[in-house]
């Protein structure tokens, strides 16, 4: 079975055309499909419009989950993923900017043995004020996480259910699915997909997203390092601080031993400060080891997912 998960927030005008487009795209697949709409606490008539849709059309079945308050796109997507019944899951936006006709191509790529196929909006139809920050963010995400995806923000993705259901999705992590899923060393493919200008409704993104993405990026980097090497992820900070402490200590000794009397208080103070930071980072490294040990069984699932039989390709 195939599940198509679509979070909806105030998309009353998009619901019916999206449903029609999805049915038209899924019907030729000749596999049982479910369209799983997740109404994320919409305040307009989105819910009523979904309820007015036919519950079944051929092999395509409609399901609807609903949050009574707006919980955000990640929570809606995570709920859809958790409730989906398909062996293959597709996620997409509900604003008609993604094109359901790309779904068969995503599935074909997945069939080649990939765990995750990511859409790439090669010709984005958004305002430059959204496109350029997004390009910079994608470049940064690739550099920082080591997962060079060109379009992390594209919601149109296809996953193996077993794989995506094992990835923890919380806060606003949907943008970082490829990065966070790298914990399980997935086989990721990226294909160009269509993108349309928004026809109805308003975009829910603003400039505050840039600051949040930057902080989230640092957090993701820490998570990836921690999950691979729980003790040593902070040792970089400890090492750098220790190095500064040694330099300050050397300057202190040089001032102390100089033939003419030179001030030493500042250098000794700096040595103590940087040394204290090195010690603090070391203590935190022990703390993270403790944290990992407490959740080792759960965190080890990424390693299980990463294991592949010999000759499985990609």
């Amino acid at each position, binding site marked *: 079975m195939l599940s198509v998960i679509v979070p909806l927030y105030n998309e009353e005008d998009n619901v019916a055309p999206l449903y029609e487009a999805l049915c038209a795209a899924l019907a030729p697949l000749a596999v049982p499909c479910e369209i799983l709409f*997740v*109404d994320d606490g919409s305040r307009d008539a989105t*819910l009523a419009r*979904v*309820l007015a849709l036919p*519950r079944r059309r051929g092999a395509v079945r*409609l*399901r*609807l*989950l*609903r*949050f*009574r*308050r707006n*919980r955000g796109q990640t*929570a809606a997507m*995570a*709920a859809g993923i958790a*409730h989906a019944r398909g062996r293959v899951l597709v996620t997409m936006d509900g604003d008609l900017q993604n094109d359901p006709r790309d779904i068969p191509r995503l599935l074909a790529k997945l069939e080649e043995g990939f765990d995750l196929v990511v859409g790439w909006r090669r010709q984005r139809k958004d305002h430059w004020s959204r496109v350029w920050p997004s390009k910079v963010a994608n470049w940064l995400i690739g550099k920082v996480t080591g997962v060079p995806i060109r379009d992390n923000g594209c919601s149109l993705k296809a996953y193996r259910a077993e794989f995506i259901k094992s990835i*923890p*999705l*919380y*806060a*606003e992590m949907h943008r970082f699915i490829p990065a966070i899923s790298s914990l399980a060393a997935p086989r990721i493919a990226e294909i160009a997909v269509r993108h349309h200008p928004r026809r109805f409704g308003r975009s829910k993104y603003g400039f505050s997203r840039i600051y*949040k993405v930057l*902080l*989230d990026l*640092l*957090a993701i980097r*820490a*998570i990836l390092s*921690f*999950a691979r090497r729980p003790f040593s992820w*902070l040792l970089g*900070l400890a090492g750098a*601080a220790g190095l500064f402490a040694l330099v300050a200590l050397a300057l202190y000794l040089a*001032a102390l031993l100089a033939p003419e009397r*030179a*001030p030493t*208080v*500042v*250098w000794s*103070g*700096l040595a103590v*400060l*940087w040394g*204290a*930071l090195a010690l*603090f*980072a070391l203590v*935190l490294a022990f*703390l*993270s080891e403790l*944290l*990992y040990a*407490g*959740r080792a069984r*759960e*965190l080890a699932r990424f390693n299980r997912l990463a294991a592949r039989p010999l000759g499985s390709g990609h």
Partner: protein
Amino acid sequence: MAAVLADRPSPPRSEPAPGVRLAGRLCVVVRVDREFTDLAERHRRLAAAVAGLAEEVRFLYLLEGALPTSRERLAELVASGAPVEVLRFPSALGSAAVLTAGLRKADGAHVLVLPADAPVELGELGRLAEAIGNADVVVARRMFAEPPSRLRAGKLESLTRLLLGSPFADLRAEVWLLRRQAADQLVLYGNQHRFLPLIAQMQGLLVAEVPVRGWLPQGAGRRLDLPLVLDLLAVFFLVRFLHKPFRFFGGIGLGVAALGGLATLWLVFERLVLGIALADRPALILSTLLVVLGLQIIAVGLIGELITFAHARHLREEEPERVID
């Protein structure tokens, strides 16, 4: 020794609101955190007020601490055959933990929670029952005959509105009506009971606030005490940053480290360009202290993020309703 309060004058009206009858059993949870010599009389007034609100009404008294007088009065009530159950807790447990235990024990389809000296007209409790049709939790908002000054009441609510965007106008009445599912879902600790409406809303429950006639207890609300402000800060952190702690720590840490970095750069500029000596001034230590402090806060934030990641599957999230399945 706990203080024994003098009897309050009876409220002017205590008959139940007409026309509202909740389906199933209503469990009335009464929190007793100090001595009341007139607890039996209070119970009778309360019982009369809620008698018509549900098909069946039972009472659960939660005693926080030794409270021998109140215990004795309640024992008499139980002996008289009244539908009353009493649970005793050590005061060290904290009011929120006691309330959580009480919510688990309460076995009605609806649970009404109020303190033994509830500062609302009991006859207006029916208004809460009227509003529960569209909500999971209904909160009493006191309307005063003579509105108190802003200095006397409303400070907590103003702060929560400012920090958390809270829509609630009265957090101190502490009179709540909950559906069974909401009572099962809520887990409170510390002094979080003061912020139950906010925490319920954070957990995805629909919370409605309903005006009822009430009063301000003598001596209450004169000042914001330190523990209350600390509790508010804790709730602020939980509501805003439970799932993304690094946005809190990272924002502060990057700010502090950037400040220290800029100050250090200025000192280096002074030394290299203006030739001002660096080694005999504390300025470099202070700027470095800021950098180190910023990095420490960032590191602590990353640990917070790791904790969230490691427990991501167990963090309480709202379960969506299956409308079409």
